[in-house]
């Protein structure tokens, strides 16, 4: 059974600081997603990572994937208050899984002035 573990689960940051959220998964994966969720809202897709060494950047967020280590990171650069949200990674096992996603527990990010 695929397990997806995120850490940290809670992250309190000051504006302007950098930090990294880690996502480890237990089996080989077809692709990995990062989502943002605001309270009471749906899942906003941030990044899709398809292959080993993939790196994607959007604004202050950068995601990377190391399939050999079964690790993805979401790096936050110079955090701003608007980035406060819950961030989830999700793994698609591929194969016969028909696109089923297994989610990490989520990281609640709070950015303070």
């Amino acid at each position, binding site marked *: 059974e695929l397990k997806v573990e995120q850490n940290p689960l809670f992250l309190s940051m000051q504006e302007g600081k950098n930090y990294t959220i880690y996502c480890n998964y237990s089996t080989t994966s*077809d*692709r990995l*997603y990062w989502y943002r969720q605001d309270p*009471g*809202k*749906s*899942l906003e*897709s941030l990044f*899709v990572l398809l292959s080993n060494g993939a790196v994607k950047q959007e604004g202050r967020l950068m995601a990377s994937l190391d399939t050999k280590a079964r690790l993805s990171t979401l790096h936050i650069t110079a955090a701003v208050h608007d980035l406060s949200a819950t961030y*989830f990674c*999700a793994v*698609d*096992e*591929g*194969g016969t*899984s*028909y*696109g*089923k*996603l*297994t*989610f*990490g*527990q*989520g990281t609640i990010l709070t950015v303070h002035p």
Partner: protein
Amino acid sequence: EPEVTQTPSHQVTQMGQEVILRCVPISNHLYFYWYRQILGQKVEFLVSFYNNEISEKSEIFDDQFSVERPDGSNFTLKIRSTKLEDSAMYFCASSVQGSKTEAFFGQGTRLTVV
């Protein structure tokens, strides 16, 4: 931009009642999913549906749950006899080709069982 739409956005029901949550997937998508998220917890897979049948389901998706695509556009999740622990946000998602393509999520239905 095409999107997955869910109705209602919020439903309150009494324990033991049946509820039907509705979803309209993106029109050219072939794979459909339901996920749930209990308040403050992670998103959990319930079921995937392709070619008018369930392709995979989780342990959560027991005999109280069923899915249907009644008319070629809607995709529904029925809970036959709701329990307090069914209270959660339920997300519908759809994708073009299953594991080879990204799934797009609806805005969710918040189900509250009282």
